[in-house]
């Protein structure tokens, strides 16, 4: 597969146990601080209006926390015009559990809020309301390849629009008593603001030579791999670690058919 044009990363947001913000995550990922994944309560999204804040589901809370960090330097008008790609391998297990239990009851009683929260794009919908974002917004799933697929779609949108795109990736464990289970153990959400290379504001760095290559990916650093195993969104940590170290690096992300998405990361403008 061929390459897309060079792509800048302008900002990063993270929200996960042991990696509660990008600035703290960067020190951990650059080996300057230990990774201590202490349990963490679901974040509160101050940007949501009170009604939506009350109704928001778990994936929304984590996704919006990471997204909010990645746009804190932007004016409201820029946020309103920022296209978004939301990516999740599993969606919201808590809402799914509620739906399945309510439908299994002798007298079915599904609440309207549960139903509208059950759409896969619920976090994107809440984000649009919270940030008054009117631009294009998509929500995708590609199982274990979800983060790479989201990055490719966001990169393709940047190429098509010559404008920035916010990529938000998130996956959470399903509740212990969920009728159907995943093997995700630890919540993870991150956000990357992507833009055409060569814009005025100095980016964190550039992605170049994106292509699909044969063979599987190397695992993450062992402590991260153990904590975030099976978390499709957390495959982003391979890229986040390269950004945190601030050095030129090759990055590989799991893709389909045992292949991976490969690219070069170069820090700075």
């Amino acid at each position: 597969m061929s390459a897309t044009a060079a792509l800048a990363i302008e900002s990063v947001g993270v929200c996960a146990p042991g990696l509660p913000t990008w600035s703290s995550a960067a020190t951990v990922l650059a080996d300057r601080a230990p990774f201590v994944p202490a349990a963490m309560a679901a974040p509160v999204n101050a940007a949501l209006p009170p009604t939506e804040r009350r109704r928001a589901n778990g994936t929304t809370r984590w996704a919006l926390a990471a997204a909010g960090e990645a746009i804190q330097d932007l004016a409201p008008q820029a946020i309103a015009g920022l296209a978004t790609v939301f990516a999740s391998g599993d969606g919201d297990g808590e809402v799914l559990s509620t739906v399945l239990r309510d439908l299994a009851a002798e007298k079915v009683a599904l609440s309207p809020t549960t139903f509208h929260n059950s759409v896969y794009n619920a976090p994107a919908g809440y984000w649009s309301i919270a940030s008054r974002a009117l631009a294009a917004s998509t929500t995708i799933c590609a199982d274990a390849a979800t983060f790479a697929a989201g990055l490719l779609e966001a990169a393709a949108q940047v190429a098509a629009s010559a404008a920035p795109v916010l990529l938000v990736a998130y996956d959470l464990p399903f509740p212990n008593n969920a009728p159907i289970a995943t093997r995700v153990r630890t919540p993870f959400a991150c956000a990357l603001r992507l833009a055409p290379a060569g814009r005025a504001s100095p980016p964190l760095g550039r992605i170049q030579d994106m292509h699909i290559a044969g063979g599987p990916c190397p695992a993450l650093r062992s402590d991260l791999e153990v904590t975030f195993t099976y978390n499709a969104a957390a495959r982003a940590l391979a890229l986040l670690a390269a950004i945190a170290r601030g050095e030129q690096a090759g990055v590989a992300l799991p893709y389909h058919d045992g292949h991976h998405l490969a690219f070069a990361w170069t820090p700075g403008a």
Partner: protein
Amino acid sequence: MIPLYLAASSLVNGCGAGWREIGDALLQGRSGLRRNDFEPAQELDTWIGRVEGVEDVSLPDRYAGFDCRANRLILMALEQDGFAQAVHALRARVGAERIGVFLGTSTSGILDTELQARAAQRSGRAPHWPDDFYAQRHSMFAGVRFVREYLALRGPAFTVSTACSSSAKVFGAAARAIATGLCDAAVVGGADSLALSTLHGFRALELLSREPCRPCAVDRSGISIGEAAGFALLVREPRGAVSVRGCGESADAWHMSSPHPDGAGAAAAMRASLEGAALTPDDIDYVNLHGTATPANDSAEDRAVTATLPHRPACSSTKGWTGHALGAAGITEALITAFALEQQWRPGTLNCDAVDPTLAMRVETRSQPARLRHAMSNSFGFGGNNCCLLMSVGHE
């Protein structure tokens, strides 16, 4: 965007399986809606667009793990109208890695998850999930996984799940993947089966009609849910008469399950599709409305259409034929729009006898031959997610 031609297409919905049955139903004004006879939700007083014969479909042995209602709909559609053969022929020419798969769905195989979880809860036992149930049936990606395996494709792939705009937005995803060189062609489309969560969910929202849906009618009373699958093979070279020229996408930033009352987001998507196609409003000859038949949706869409297309082109909703196929509505109506362009025929609005006089757009109730060059197909979803496809007939 780059024009993409529909080199092949196929579909199933309440009107039948394949173009012969569905084309006849469209031209003859025969609705695919029936009083609810979907056994797992038979207590609901409503009308549905159920696909006949899904229960009798059997997947080939090697795909047995994929067996669920949604994947049966997918298989039915892939095997209509020579669609799979057209993909095989293209694959032989360009290679499996060069054909992407981008499908939309809102619920994937959730019906089977719902039924097994219900059986377990009611019997007091823990549910038993077969190996790979999650990946092959439950996951939002299950349909793409099935299509890639069934058609032996290895190009870029993902599922779009943005509720009722899902399988319209895949045209944009495919156009971008092709424009950036990730692939040369793409299978797009999607599927949604009838499901307990959607039937009961729309009832909870009081949006489910007790009669066959009557889009844009003065006495419209909500949606009829349908199930459907549909596919298009998109290529850059002019093969086939119809091309997709624009895919406008936007968000409402308004409410999780109600459209913006002024249709502002919908209008933005329509304008974006015109920009993508480098056309002007006057070029549009026909709009296939989202037209769900809820009072609020049709009014909001009227504002959007009126603001975007002041020359008042013919508009109609075809949900009286198919019902609202939710995540599969985008592909269903894109293909009906392509059919209209090919046949030089404009569908009316089945079941709409008296148009709501407060609607300013030109709602056509009767089908008739029409000269059509460019047409739009609107799809709007929960979370305020909007998509408008712009399609054209002829080569230039």
